[in-house]
């Protein structure tokens, strides 16, 4: 249970750069009306970010080329299936973790 002044300052620095992007829109949006086109654009952000975060795991960089991360893609298929079937967050997470644990057991 120890730390140093330098470490605390580093963590505070990281906290600050994490905090600013989170709160800035809440401060800005409160004081101005957003143009329609921006709101239309924003409507696409959730699906885009979430799919980008999922797709990020499909690939891995090896030296100079990007290859398919087959283990993650294999785990994705039953996870997606359970998500579509149950529309449940917790069931999907459990299914995903179990699938990945099983795949690692067989494919290392």
């Amino acid at each position: 249970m120890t730390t140093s002044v330098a470490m605390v300052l580093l963590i505070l620095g990281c906290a600050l750069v994490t905090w600013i992007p989170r709160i800035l829109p809440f401060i800005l949006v409160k004081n101005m009306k957003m143009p329609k086109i921006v709101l239309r654009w924003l409507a696409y952000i959730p699906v885009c970010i979430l799919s980008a975060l999922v797709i990020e795991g499909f690939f891995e960089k090896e030296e100079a080329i990007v290859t398919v991360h087959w283990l993650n893609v294999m785990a994705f298929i039953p996870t997606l299936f359970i998500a579509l079937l149950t529309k449940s967050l917790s069931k999907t997470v459990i299914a995903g973790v179990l699938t990945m644990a099983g795949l690692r057991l067989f494919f290392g």
Partner: protein
Amino acid sequence: MERIEQKPLTPDTFLQGVKDCVPTLLGYISIGLAFGVVGIASGISVLEVFLLSVLVYAGSAQFIFCGLYLAGAPVTAVIATIFIVNLRHLLMSLTIAPYFTKYSMLRNIGFGTLLTDETFGVSVVSAGKEGRLGGKWMDGLNITAYTTWIAACTIGGVIGQWLPDPEKWGLDYALVAMFVALLVLTLASIPKEKLMHYIKLILIMVISMYGMLYFMPGHLAVLLSTVIVATIGVALEK
């Protein structure tokens, strides 16, 4: 004429927010535990694991912090990387913030401070279904997630001393599985006639991510692809 008031599906109470947070808790717990274990493995103390989860409160940033710390990266590189990784919150925050304009500045700063990928996902799904978001509900959601995260990370740090290799049990995949579920839930709240448009965008996203990963790290590719594909989405509307 009698007006038909549509009743909101979920009431704006703190308790309802807590309840709607519960399905995401397994994700926070498994990733938090994994973070604690990884943190200890990369040479930071339990107190530092605790401070990171309280002050930074962002899983990906915390993992990157450990990675960079272990690699002996300079302070400026650590802070700059964390900034870029968390820039995606700017987009999430921009999406959620318009629902809260009637609340005070201080409360808005509170909502923003506790925004995460998961609370964002849950709110977007709720906003998509009901067309509004309540402040008390948001607080319940946020505070449940925040306290669970801090507890999970810290406990992970404590047990990290005798539990190596959380990956073996697939715990690291909890994060991705959660994104898959949130994506499906978000798509389920989109009007049927627009679904094909969104599926097209997801296919474009696959190509975009693949291409960009040649030139930049994953977190940057996520950010840039999101901006580009959302713009394509607006351009290809109707």
